[in-house]
């Protein structure tokens, strides 16, 4: 770890220029120990008043410092946004969720092993050095939206649920703004080191949830062990049914791209239809039409298809025995 200065912020603006924000530190500290990130200055924001969950219009405003464990257990979240609660509980471990914050969770970095290994080239860590995951061990890498420069995935679960819930990120900056989660993350293209639309000096202050979506909400995460593992594939689904037809559908996918993936075309394809494996398969095919593997992760293509079908069968109430 490289030496750094440490400042504990007392107000939102009490932040030294260029300082990297630390809250729960569940990811940043590891990155600093491995010298993947070497901030010269840290600003600890945990003393700020950003840890409330409060009404916001018909929806909710979740402070950036609300802990994952508190958010998952919040009675209103559990009642009105069960998808979010389930996604949070599918992530990390109890100990990590006790430390991890809402804002920090959005900003977590990929778990590509080559990103963490400073002996190896990585365009995300060291732009221009190359991508060691291409041609390397890439079991848990992206099948959608990757580029020749980077095939890493966004690793989290919470943001996948937020994507399906049409959440927005509230950003404090000289020009405060609210960014839909759909626009918050960037695909790698030629600059995989730039992962979000956050600009220098900006800080996430809250996540805004719209009015409850209702319907059946599922978060289905498939991984290599039953807990404490990153998603191979995850599906966040919100399904509203009317007269045995799908009236509303929101689907987001984790573990497959550098951002929570969503495909409006696939959702539109479901609307007004009676649930069936054929229909769900067609939706999956649409989502996957641009998918490609890199050897170790080829299986994610059929796995996403199968997981989506299983999740939709469950959310639409199809009999498991069919």
């Amino acid at each position: 770890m490289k030496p750094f200065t440490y400042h504990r912020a007392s107000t939102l603006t009490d932040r030294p220029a260029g300082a990297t924000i630390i809250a729960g530190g569940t990811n940043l500290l590891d990155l600093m120990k491995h010298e993947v990130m070497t901030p010269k200055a840290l600003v600890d924001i945990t003393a700020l008043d950003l840890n409330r969950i409060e009404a916001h219009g018909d929806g909710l405003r979740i402070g950036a410092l609300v802990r994952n464990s508190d958010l998952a257990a919040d009675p209103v979240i559990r009642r009105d946004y069960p998808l979010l609660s389930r996604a949070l509980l599918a992530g990390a471990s109890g100990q990590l969720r006790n430390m991890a914050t809402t804002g920090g969770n959005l900003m977590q970095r990929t778990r590509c092993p080559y990103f963490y290994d400073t002996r190896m080239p990585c365009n995300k860590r060291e732009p221009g050095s190359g991508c060691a995951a291409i041609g390397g061990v890439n079991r848990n890498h992206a099948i959608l939206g990757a580029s020749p420069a980077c095939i890493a995935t966004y690793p989290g679960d919470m943001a996948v649920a937020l994507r399906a819930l049409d959440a927005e990120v509230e950003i404090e900056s000289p020009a405060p703004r609210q960014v839909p989660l759909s626009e918050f993350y960037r695909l790698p293209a030629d600059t995989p080191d730039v992962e979000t639309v956050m600009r220098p000096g900006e800080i996430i202050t809250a996540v805004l949830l719209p009015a409850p979506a209702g319907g059946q909400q599922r978060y289905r995460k498939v991984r290599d062990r039953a807990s404490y593992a990153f998603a191979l594939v995850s599906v966040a689904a919100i399904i509203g049914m009317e007269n045995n037809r799908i009236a509303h559908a929101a689907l987001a996918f984790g573990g497959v791209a550098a951002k929570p993936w969503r495909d409006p075309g696939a959702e539109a394809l479901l609307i007004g239809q009676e649930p069936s494996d054929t229909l769900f398969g067609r939706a999956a095919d649409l989502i996957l039409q641009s998918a490609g593997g890199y050897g170790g992760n080829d299986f994610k293509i059929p796995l996403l298809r199968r997981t989506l079908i299983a999740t939709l069968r469950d959310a639409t109430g199809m009999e498991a025995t069919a």
Partner: protein
Amino acid sequence: MTRHLKVDAPIPDSPLDHMAQGVLGKPVSRLEGPLKVTGRATYAAEARPEGLLYGVLVQAAIPAGKVLSIGDAPGAMVVIHDPRLIRYAAQGMATEGPTAGPDEVEYMGQAIAVVVAEALEAAQAAAQALQVTYEAKDVPVDPEAVEPERPEDKQSATGDLDRAMQDASHTLDQIWHTPSHTAAAMEPHAATAEWSGDTLTVRAGYQMLATSREQLADAVGIKPDQVRLLAPYVGGGFGSKLGINADSVAAAIAAQQLGRPVQVVMTRQQVFDLAHRRSETRQRIRLACDTQGKLTGIGHEALVSNLPGVSFSEPVTQATPFTYQAAHRQIVHAIARVHRSCAGSVRAPGEAVGATVFECAMDELAETAGIDPVELRLRNIPDTEPCTGRPFSSHKLAEALREGAARFNWSDRRPTGQRREGDWYIGMGVASAVRVNSLIESRARVTLQADGRAIVETDMTDIGTGSYTILGQIAAETLGLAVDRVEVRLGDSDFPPASGSGGSFGAASSGTSVYLACAEIRSQIAALIGCDEADLTLQNGQVRTGNVSRPLDALLTGELTGDGHLEPGKTEDTVRQATWGSHWAEIAVNRWTGEVRVRRMLGVFACGRVLNEKTARSQCLGGMTFGLGMALTEAMAHDPRDGHIVTRDLAEYHIPCHADVPPLEVHFLTESDTYVGPLHAKGLGELGICGAGAAILNAIHNACGVRVRELPATPDKIIAGLQS
């Protein structure tokens, strides 16, 4: 006085069966448990001698070649790249240090230097900033892409297997792959070294002190009697701490050069790179049987890997020659020389992967032959060791299979793919458990103090297994004392050398030496009271013979000392010694995602006398959990270009977590093995893993019809075989 025993003959009547205390075998809780859960048991990395300096290992960033230069390390006291630094860990029981000379790089991640500073953080930062230049060379890293060695003494053939395959009613010929595994002990490798004149004291987490002391002396260039190793508490070993590693050598050299104590603690990533891995294996199994399922042919061909020049090779086929009967047999053992990290003993080397794969093959043959898998095994159990004709010291496989079938309700098992609950296919699987058994020379000293308390001293280690407790129970039983009247002192190389912990031999070997030391004291007590040792009853601090009963402390006028010395003898050769058991698993496979969830497991084991029901059970639970990991989750991924270990922390290398492990049931068969010394106890630590994974893999097939022959059975492997 020393009581010496060389186990040349069976001992039909165990003297332990005539003791009166009644504590041996009881589920006594770990004596050191309270110290561990309150943080008072200090491990090697927790030593804080006056003036301690911190050393951080620097690792090679090339797979092979030469270190040309190493730069300065601002902020650190010194960068040491001494030619004595070892390239990889010593193999268990070696009596010399491993190959030294860090400037020659043999694998990516090899330790090439140690940076020392006043503070750990300064040493870490300096190590990370260090500029190293190399002359790299191209080397093979893929075991299947090189022509392997086939050492003559590791090949064997009886009869004509090819012919047996041609003539058989049913055959099986398949290839399995198992990945590299890591031991993944909770405690990282750590050493704190301190010199006093010419004498070196090292606190380290080691499994076998006597040989590690010799290795370290050789590596550092001093005599063994100049080295004292201290390992009172070891946070798990599983083979990874059998021999010395870079931590202790680097700490010793740095402490010597700087004249102050130095501590080197490996990071988790360094543990992955520098502790021995279990070699990946490629196993081809051929089986032939007649219409009744009687095996006529057995072939087991193994390909494993290691660095050039390293003698260890994963003994995959170790149990194959004696587990099942067949007239025509062939064993092939090939070793690929590749530049992956050094391979060595990890969690039951040999049977863990060898018996697991073989038991999968037996399941496939059972299906082909249309015979129940339990019945197929029962029909092929040999009466004597095939090939040699030696008798077995004891043999409980048939009983373990029958008992397990009853306890697990095996008769509920349905044909493949016939049981479903919602989206989950349900299946049941079975496998035999087998592990070779051995005794290792072992010594102990017991002192009976005048107040009637006993002290046991031996350099035996307790690596989390319960050595303190069982040795205390053996002494308490033999001397007729409550367990809390016995103090057990372990993990100090100044104590009489024991077997150490490894190969499941620790409990029986060191336990017997403790028993012998206590038996010597019994004879001294008998002399004091004036009777034959055989007529002596010791119980609760009372000495009885005939009608005479006296308090022990009243009889003693001073302390009594006994030394015990066990040596393995002719029964190593006159009989085949092994432990046996059976594994049972019920699992669920998700029909969409291919996720596998284990619903219940049962292990039935026979290990001779059970010395402590609680710690023995814990050993088996750990082994079965490792078996679950082997079957479903654990894989060390090597980069295909340079061989480096990609999954090098516990988030990426998937040890089963709590949610993966269902309630596990362990049942011990009553057994007494007369060929293994007076304890009648055999090894147990490793039996729990041997075959456990096969029960799960076989259950997967029973559930959904998918055979996974490339371990572990992660969702991708399952869905590849499921119908869409």
